[in-house]
């Protein structure tokens, strides 16, 4: 329209706006038509968009929020939280703070929120739980004339005279905290508020993350080594055979992961099919340790994730006409060299997409290591589940989850930088 207007107004009368046959302005009519089209398109997409928003984006942001959320102290010790902000953090807090603490604990005792606060503070200094509970039981306190609340608190438990405990309260008197994220990375907050590495005996998660990435890396490598030739074979078989084999690839895909892991246990355990077969054949004298260790985890995870490499690789290979290889060979290249120089580069995008998919799924894997691995094989997801189900520590669960998410995003960013996201082909 914009391009047409000037030339039309030259040939027609002077800049009089064009009107449609019914006298309405053409631009108005056109704009309405476009708007209607857009509305229809939006209406079609809306259900999916809303669904995605509610089931995907909102939970992710809630999860991210949970990892820094720190409501317990602020909510249940409101007066203390407010006053302790102006504490100089050297000597003990002022009498006012102790007074406020007494009021807050009394209120908390009434609405039964003491355990929540106690649990939160106990994460920073163990023993804090009992201290809070012991003190809360004494509430409300009747003070004799001239007696200070501070002395009374210290009388209940001398730990109240230790500024470190007050530091913890002061630190948690904000509605957000880096505590969970720091803990997930084996860091802790110094009194100055900067992160430092936790003492060696308290470190755990760095090695768990390392293990998760390591296992994921090897599963991806094995999947590629097994999946690439298989995909190539499938892509170059006659259609009937390749369809049949494709069903064999997909069949396990349609079976529950739990069932598949259980079947692997049956196959791999000490008295399992594989060991007894090898023993009966006289190949081994002692049963091999195949399950409940790294080997079992690798076998089952590779088996479960193989289709995710095969399918995108297959679809890319299927789209490469055999004439490329023929052309390279007719130009004088040895078939192996031609494969490497001509065929392989064209499959990289699809194969890398498959590998990325496998790796991303791997780092979130839970059930296979949980059932087929020893404690040494448990990955980050296991601890997410542990914090969610066992210790009901949403903060830690969310922090670990957020870090996994960040790892995935970083990986994707690196990948798209290297290969180019627009080349990513998921079939």
């Amino acid at each position: 329209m914009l391009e047409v207007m000037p030339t039309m107004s030259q040939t027609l009368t002077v800049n009089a706006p064009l009107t449609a046959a019914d006298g309405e302005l053409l631009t108005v009519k056109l704009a309405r038509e476009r708007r209607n089209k857009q509305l229809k398109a939006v209406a079609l997409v809306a259900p999916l968009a809303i669904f995605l928003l509610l089931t995907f984006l909102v939970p992710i942001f809630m999860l991210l929020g949970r990892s820094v959320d720190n409501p317990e102290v602020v909510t249940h010790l409101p007066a203390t939280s407010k006053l302790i902000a102006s504490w100089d953090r050297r000597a003990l807090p002022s009498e006012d703070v102790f007074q406020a603490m007494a009021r807050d604990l009394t209120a908390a005792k009434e609405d039964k929120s003491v355990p929540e606060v106690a649990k939160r503070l106990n994460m920073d200094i163990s023993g804090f739980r009992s201290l809070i509970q012991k003190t809360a039981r004494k509430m409300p306190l009747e003070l004799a004339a001239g007696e200070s609340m501070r002395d009374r608190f210290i009388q209940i438990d001398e730990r109240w005279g230790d500024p470190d405990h007050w530091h913890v309260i002061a630190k948690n008197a904000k509605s957000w905290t880096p505590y969970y994220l720091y803990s997930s990375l084996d860091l802790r907050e110094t009194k100055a508020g900067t992160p430092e590495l936790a003492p060696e005996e308290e470190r755990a998660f760095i090695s768990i993350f390392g293990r998760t990435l390591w296992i994921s890396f090897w599963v991806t490598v094995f999947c590629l080594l097994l999946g690439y030739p298989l995909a190539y074979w499938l892509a170059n078989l006659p259609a009937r055979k390749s369809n049949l084999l494709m069903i064999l690839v997909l069949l396990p895909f349609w079976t529950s992961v739990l069932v598949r892991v259980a079947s692997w246990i049956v196959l791999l355990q000490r008295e399992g099919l594989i060991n007894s077969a090898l023993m009966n054949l006289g190949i081994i004298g002692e049963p091999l340790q195949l399950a409940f260790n790294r080997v079992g985890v690798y076998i089952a995870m590779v088996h479960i994730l193989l289709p995710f490499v095969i399918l995108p690789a297959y679809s890319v290979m299927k789209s490469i006409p055999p004439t490329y290889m023929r052309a390279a060979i007719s130009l004088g290249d040895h078939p192996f060299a031609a494969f490497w120089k001509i065929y392989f580069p064209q499959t990289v995008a699809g194969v890398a997409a498959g590998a990325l998919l496998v790796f991303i799924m791997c780092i979130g894997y839970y059930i296979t290591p949980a059932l087929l691995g020893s404690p040494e094989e448990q990955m980050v997801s296991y601890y997410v589940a542990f914090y969610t189900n066992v210790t009901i520590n949403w903060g830690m669960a969310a922090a670990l989850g957020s870090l996994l998410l960040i790892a995935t995003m970083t990986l994707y960013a690196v990948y798209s930088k290297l290969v180019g996201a627009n080349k990513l082909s998921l079939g």
Partner: protein
Amino acid sequence: MMSEKHTASDTLVSFRGVQKSYDGESLIVKNLDLDIRKGEFLTMLGPSGSGKTTCLMMLAGFETPTHGEIRLGDKLLNHVPPHKRNIGMVFQNYALFPHMTVAENLAYPLTIRKMSKSEITDRVKKALGMVKLDALANRYPGQMSGGQQQRVALARALVFEPQLVLMDEPLGALDKQLREHMQLEIKHIHENLGITVVYVTHDQGEALTMSDRVAVFKDGIIQQIDAANVLYEKPVNSFVANFIGENNTLHGEVVAVQDQHCTVRLGNGNTVQAAAVCVGKAGEATSMSIRPERVRLNRYAEACENRLQARLAEFIYFGDHVRLRLDVAGQSGFMVKVPAGELDSSWKVGDTLDIGWMARDIRALDASVYTH
């Protein structure tokens, strides 16, 4: 099949008793004997499934003959793997490597032959100049038009200077105008370089324009192998007559055969004198073939040996000429070409015209059910 007389040293490629079967039940190529001369442009022409591409692939080495021998020069090719045959090949879908630039595509066969950097650069430049694409050396195939890609493919097949170049329907994916242009270009390149080209196509126009000789394939057998004009003017059987160019067929029964001539009775009782090419004894059915431009009308027909009456069924306008569809001797679909200037404006559909032709122009061939 048709064996040509020439000395052995002229022959570059020879097929001897070559057979190919994919399923062990039917032969896709049946007992092929074929000599391809040095410097020749030979086209294998035929409908799909006629075995022409299989022959080409056996020559390239991508298929192995089930039986027989293929020789290149005096070397037996049967057990030479395709990458050691040193035969250039152009594919229908160009098969340019999409992840390499034009220059890299052209350098590919040279790098394999371990040529020096400077020689590679020289040769690539020369090859690009030959196909007039000097400016596009750093483009990727995806950024080029079909015609340009085809030229690159051509240059790539020639850049390592093979003595034999195979082309598998290389122009099949181009539009008509570009195809005609490329036909001439390929022909000129062939003439300039003096290489031997084996060209596969199902487009008879292409085959006639470009080739020194055309081998017409059907059902795994070469029906006829000859120069384009011989193929067109003197088809040896009804398949070739119908496959090459436009053809009118008249079905009839042989009355008498004398030497190279025969008399044929048409369905309505008329008799026609024809050249006996591929006919049996008297009493057998025959299909006669005559090219539309050999049929003469009204006063031009007066001097002809064969004269018939025809009913004008349709005018088909082609710009430079008009085609008349006629019903002749009870058989419909008989086409005559009339130059625009010779068209009589008084003719109209339903008129009866006198048509005629010389006996040497109509060839009595094997009976076919093939209708035009």
